[in-house]
C-alpha cells in the first residue's frame, strides 16, 4: 500500500490533511461520501479489511468501529451466502460486479438474521504497481422497496417498532426548577436518581458548553424556557457523577397554568453522543477518503446537473485530460472529442434512470491536452448516480482507471499470435462459441480457393468430402453441446487440382476460467502422403502374409509326411519332427495375426455368428494351448450350460490368446486359472496368472496395436498384437475386455459378452 495512505489510516491529524486538499473541498467530500444515501465502503487485501466506510454502512450492519477488521470478522453471518465469493472474484479478476436486489442475511443488534436487499456495485482498484489492492463497494439499501413490494411487512407494525425504538429521556420541573418527574431513559442518561421535589435540575449534574467549559445554569435552555417562556435549543454537554460526558440536545417546553402563567417546564433530552462520535469518525474516514481521492491510482470526478458540469476532479482524473481546465466547465465543452463516442448517451441514461453503469476496457479517443489529436485510451470505469437531499439525482460520480497499456500489450500479443497462425502451413480457423466463423488463415484460403465472403458463410462445409460431410457436421454439433474435442481423419478438397486429400482435423474448445466455451480453434494437417503410404503398406502386408503361407503349407505337409514315415524310428527323431511342426504352426499364427490387424484397420474383420456350446469352445481352447504348455496346468472352474451366440472360432482365438499370455508371463508358475460364469445375461470369463504382472501405467496401453510392455521385450516373444485383436473381436460381440494387475502378483483378464446378440430376438 501507498505509504501516504498508511499515514492516514493511523489518523491523528486528519483535519490538517483535509485542509491541505485544495482540489476537493470538505463540503464536496461530505457530499460524495456521506450525503449520498448510499452505502460506501472500501476494503483492501485478500481478507477484505475494512479501510473506510460511511454511516449508511454502519446503519446497514448495525455495528460500529470496525475499520481494519476483516469482512469475515465484521459479518461472520455472510459465510455461505456467496457475497464473499463475489468479492473474491472481483478481487482476483478485476472485473466489476453489479448486483440488483441482492438478498443478504445480516445479524444486527436484534441478534436475529434479517434479510436486507441491496443494489450494489463492487469495483476493484489498482495500486501504483497496477496490482489489485482493494474494492470499492457502493450499495443502496432497497430492502424497504423490496419488502413493501412483496408485501411481507405491514406498515403499521413497522411504524410502532420505530417509535418503540426511539430513545428519549424526559423530565419535568416546577416553577422553581425542582425536579418533579422523570423516566427510566432519563435515569440512564443522567447516571443518577435524584429525589423528586428536592433537587433543582441544574444541581442534578454538571452542564457544559461544547468547548467543555461549565455552562452557567441561567444560560441553559431549560432555564430560559422556565423563566422567559422562550423555546430554544442547542447542543450542550452533561457530565455524569462517574465523570463521563454525554452530548445532548434539550427540547424544553414551558408548562402554563390556566391563567397562562409558567408553572413548570418539560424537557426532552436527546442523547446525541453516538452521533457526535460518529461525526468525528466520519471526519477521519473522510480524511482517508480524501487521501484515496488524491492518491489512489483511480480517477474520480463528479459531474453536476443534467449538463454534466465538472464539479470535483482528483489528480488522476485530471491526468486523463492533461493541463486542460475542467473544473466548473461542462463536459462537452471541456472534452469536446467525446462527442459521438456514446458517452453522453450513457451519462444521460444513468442520470435519468439511476441505473449505475459499469464497463471494462472501453475504448475512448481522448486528447491528452486541448487541441491535441485524440489518442485511443482504454478505461475501466463506472458511472454512479449522486442524489441531493430530496433524493433526486443531481449528478454523476465517475470512478475508474486507465488500462490502455495492458490492453495494447495484450492486443500486441494477439497480433503476434495471428501472425503465427497466418504463417502456419496448416489449415487453421476459429469460430465463436455458437459456431459462427470468425477467422481463417492464409493457408485455408490458398488450399480451398474460397474468398473471404465464401469462407465466412460456408466455412469448411464446401471442402468436406461428400461421403464424410454428414458425419463431420453431426459430430461438430455434438461438440458444440458437449464442449468436447473433435479429432478425426477426413478428406478435404484442394482447389488447385480438385483432389480430396487426407487430413487430420483437430477441433478444440478454448474455455475461460468458468469452463465456458469462448471460441473454437480448428486445424487440419495434410497427412495424404502418409495415409497413402500406409494403405500401400497394408496392401503389401495382405499379399505378403498370403504368399508366406504358401511355402508354409508345403513345409508343414512334408513335415507331417516325415513324421508318418518315422514309425518305428527313435523317439528322438519323432520329437524333433513334432517340434518342427509346432514351430510351423506358430509361424502360421503369427502371420494370421498380422493379417487380422490389417483387417481391423481396414474394418474388414468380420465375425460369423452362430449358436454354439460355450463350454465346449473353452475346452477346445484349453486343448489348443496344451501343445505350448511348459510346466503349467490350466485350472478351469465354472460351467455355462446355455448356448451362446457369437463367432465360435474368433472367441476361441481370444481365449487362446489370453491363456497363452498367462502362460508366457508366468514362466516359473505352476497354474493358470480360467473361470466362467453367467451374470445377468452376460457370459463372464476370467483368465488369471500369478506371474510378473503389469504396471498400472501400462494397463491401458496393452490393448494398443504393437504395444508391448517394454520390460518384457527381451525375455518374452510375440508381436504384442494379440490383445489388440482380441479387444476388436470382443467389441464386435458388444462385449468388454479389461485387465486388472499388480506387479509381481500377476494379472487377471476379464471378458464379458452378451449371451444373445443384442440385435436378435
Amino acid at each position, binding site marked *: 500500500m501507498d505509504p501516504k495512505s498508511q499515514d492516514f489510516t493511523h489518523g491523528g491529524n486528519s483535519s490538517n490533511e483535509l485542509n491541505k486538499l485544495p482540489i476537493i473541498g470538505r463540503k464536496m467530500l461530505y457530499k460524495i461520501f456521506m450525503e449520498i444515501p448510499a452505502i460506501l465502503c472500501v476494503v483492501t487485501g485478500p481478507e477484505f479489511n475494512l479501510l473506510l466506510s460511511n454511516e449508511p454502512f454502519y446503519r446497514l450492519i448495525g455495528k460500529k468501529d470496525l475499520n481494519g477488521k476483516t469482512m469475515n470478522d465484521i459479518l461472520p453471518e455472510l459465510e455461505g451466502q456467496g457475497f464473499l465469493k463475489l468479492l473474491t472474484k472481483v478481487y482476483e479478476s478485476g472485473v466489476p460486479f453489479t448486483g440488483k436486489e441482492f438478498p443478504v442475511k445480516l445479524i444486527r443488534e436484534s441478534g436475529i438474521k434479517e434479510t436486507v436487499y441491496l443494489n450494489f456495485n463492487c469495483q476493484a482498484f489498482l495500486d501504483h504497481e497496477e496490482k489489485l489492492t482493494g474494492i470499492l463497494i457502493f450499495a443502496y439499501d432497497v430492502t424497504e422497496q423490496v419488502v413493501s413490494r412483496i408485501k411481507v411487512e405491514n406498515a403499521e407494525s413497522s411504524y410502532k417498532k420505530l417509535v418503540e425504538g426511539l430513545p428519549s429521556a424526559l423530565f419535568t420541573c416546577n416553577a422553581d426548577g425542582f425536579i418533579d418527574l422523570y423516566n427510566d431513559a432519563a435515569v440512564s442518561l443522567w447516571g443518577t436518581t435524584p429525589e423528586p421535589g428536592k433537587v433543582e435540575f441544574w444541581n442534578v449534574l454538571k452542564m457544559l458548553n461544547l468547548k467543555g467549559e461549565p455552562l452557567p445554569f441561567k444560560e441553559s435552555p431549560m432555564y430560559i424556557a422556565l423563566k422567559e417562556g422562550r423555546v430554544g435549543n442547542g447542543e450542550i454537554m452533561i457530565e455524569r457523577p462517574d465523570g463521563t460526558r454525554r452530548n445532548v440536545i434539550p427540547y424544553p417546553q414551558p408548562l402554563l397554568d390556566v391563567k397562562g402563567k409558567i408553572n413548570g417546564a418539560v424537557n426532552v433530552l436527546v442523547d446525541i453522543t453516538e452521533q457526535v462520535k460518529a461525526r468525528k469518525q466520519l471526519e477521519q474516514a473522510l480524511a482517508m477518503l480524501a487521501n484515496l481521492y488524491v492518491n489512489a491510482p483511480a480517477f474520480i470526478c463528479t459531474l453536476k446537473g443534467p449538463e454534466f458540469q465538472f464539479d470535483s476532479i482528483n489528480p488522476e482524473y485530471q491526468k486523463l485530460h492533461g493541463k486542460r481546465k475542467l473544473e466548473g466547465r461542462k463536459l462537452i465543452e471541456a472534452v469536446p472529442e467525446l462527442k459521438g463516442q456514446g458517452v453522453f448517451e450513457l451519462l444521460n441514461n444513468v442520470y435519468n434512470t439511476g441505473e449505475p453503469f459499469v464497463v471494462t476496457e472501453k475504448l475512448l479517443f481522448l486528447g491528452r491536452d486541448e487541441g491535441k489529436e485524440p489518442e485511443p485510451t482504454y478505461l475501466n470505469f463506472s458511472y454512479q448516480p449522486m442524489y441531493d437531499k430530496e433524493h433526486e439525482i443531481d449528478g454523476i460520480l465517475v470512478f475508474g482507471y486507465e488500462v490502455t497499456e495492458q490492453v495494447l500489450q495484450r492486443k500486441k500479443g494477439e497480433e503476434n499470435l495471428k501472425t503465427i497462425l497466418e504463417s502456419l502451413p496448416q489449415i487453421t480457423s476459429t469460430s465463436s462459441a455458437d459456431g459462427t466463423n470468425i477467422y481463417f488463415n492464409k493457408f485455408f484460403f490458398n488450399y480451398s480457393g474460397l474468398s473471404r465472403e465464401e469462407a465466412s458463410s460456408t466455412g469448411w462445409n464446401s471442402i468436406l468430402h461428400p461421403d464424410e460431410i454428414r458425419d463431420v457436421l453431426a459430430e461438430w454439433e455434438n461438440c458444440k453441446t458437449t464442449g468436447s474435442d473433435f479429432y478425426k481423419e477426413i478428406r478435404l478438397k484442394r482447389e488447385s487440382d480438385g483432389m480430396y486429400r487426407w487430413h487430420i482435423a483437430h477441433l478444440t474448445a478454448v474455455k475461460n476460467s468458468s469452463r465456458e466455451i469462448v471460441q473454437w480453434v480448428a486445424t487440419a494437417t495434410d497427412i495424404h502422403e502418409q495415409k497413402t503410404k500406409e494403405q500401400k503398406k497394408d496392401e503389401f502386408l495382405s499379399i505378403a502374409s498370403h504368399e508366406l503361407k504358401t511355402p508354409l*503349407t*508345403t513345409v508343414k505337409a512334408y513335415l*507331417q509326411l516325415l513324421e508318418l514315415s518315422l514309425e518305428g524310428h527313435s523317439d528322438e527323431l519323432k520329437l524333433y519332427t513334432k517340434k518342427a511342426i509346432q514351430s510351423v504352426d506358430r509361424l502360421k499364427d503369427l502371420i494370421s495375426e498380422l493379417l487380422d490387424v490389417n483387417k481391423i484397420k481396414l474394418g474388414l474383420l*468380420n465375425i460369423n455368428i452362430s449358436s454354439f456350446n460355450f463350454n465346449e469352445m473353452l475346452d477346445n481352447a484349453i486343448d489348443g494351448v496344451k501343445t505350448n504348455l511348459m510346466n503349467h496346468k490350466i485350472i478351469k472352474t465354472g460351467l455355462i450350460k446355455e448356448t451362446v451366440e457369437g463367432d465360435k472360432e474368433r472367441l476361441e482365438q481370444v481365449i487362446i490368446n489370453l491363456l497363452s499370455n498367462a502362460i508366457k508371463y508366468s514362466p516359473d508358475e505352476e497354474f493358470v486359472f480360467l473361470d466362467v460364469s453367467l451374470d445377468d445375461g452376460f457370459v463372464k470369463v476370467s483368465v488369471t496368472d500369478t506371474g510378473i504382472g503389469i504396471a498400472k501405467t501400462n494397463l491401458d496401453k496393452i490393448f494398443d496395436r504393437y504395444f508391448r510392455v517394454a520390460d518384457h521385450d527381451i525375455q518374452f516373444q510375440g508381436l504384442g498384437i494379440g490383445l489388440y485383436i482380441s479387444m476388436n473381436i470382443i467389441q464386435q460381440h458388444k462385449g468388454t475386455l479389461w485387465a486388472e494387475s499388480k506387479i509381481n502378483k500377476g494379472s487377471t483378464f476379464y471378458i464379458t459378452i452378451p449371451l444373445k446378440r443384442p440385435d436378435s430376438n
Partner: protein
Amino acid sequence: MSQSQQKCVLIYDDDVEILTVCKAILAGKNYRIETLLYCENIIDDIQKIRPDIVVMDLWIPKIGGENAIKLMMENDSTKNIPVILFSANDEIEKISERIHANGYLKKPFDIIDFKKVLSKYLDS
C-alpha cells in the same frame, strides 16, 4: 484295381510345390491325381480328365479360382462334381458358402484333414 475304377482328383494351384506335396500326401491312396497350374479352361479340362472331385486354389492368375468354380457350376455337365477349395485366403469360408463348394481347407492345412475330406467323397 483297374484304372477305370480308380477315383480321380483334379487339383488346381499356381504353385508347383503345392501340387507336388499334394501328390506325395495322396501317394498311398489309390487315386489318379491330375494337377494343373491354370484354370481358365476348366470346362475343357474336366471333360478331358473326368475327375471325381476338384480341389481348387483361390488365387490363381487370370480368372482366379472363384470364377473358375462359377463356370463349372453353371455348366450342366460339370456342376455335379464335388468341389473343395483350399487357400491361404482368410475369406475362404465365406467364399466357399458363396459358391456352394462342398468343403474347404485353410492353408497351411493338416494332411490328415486333407486326406479325410477327399476320402469323404471318393472312398464311399
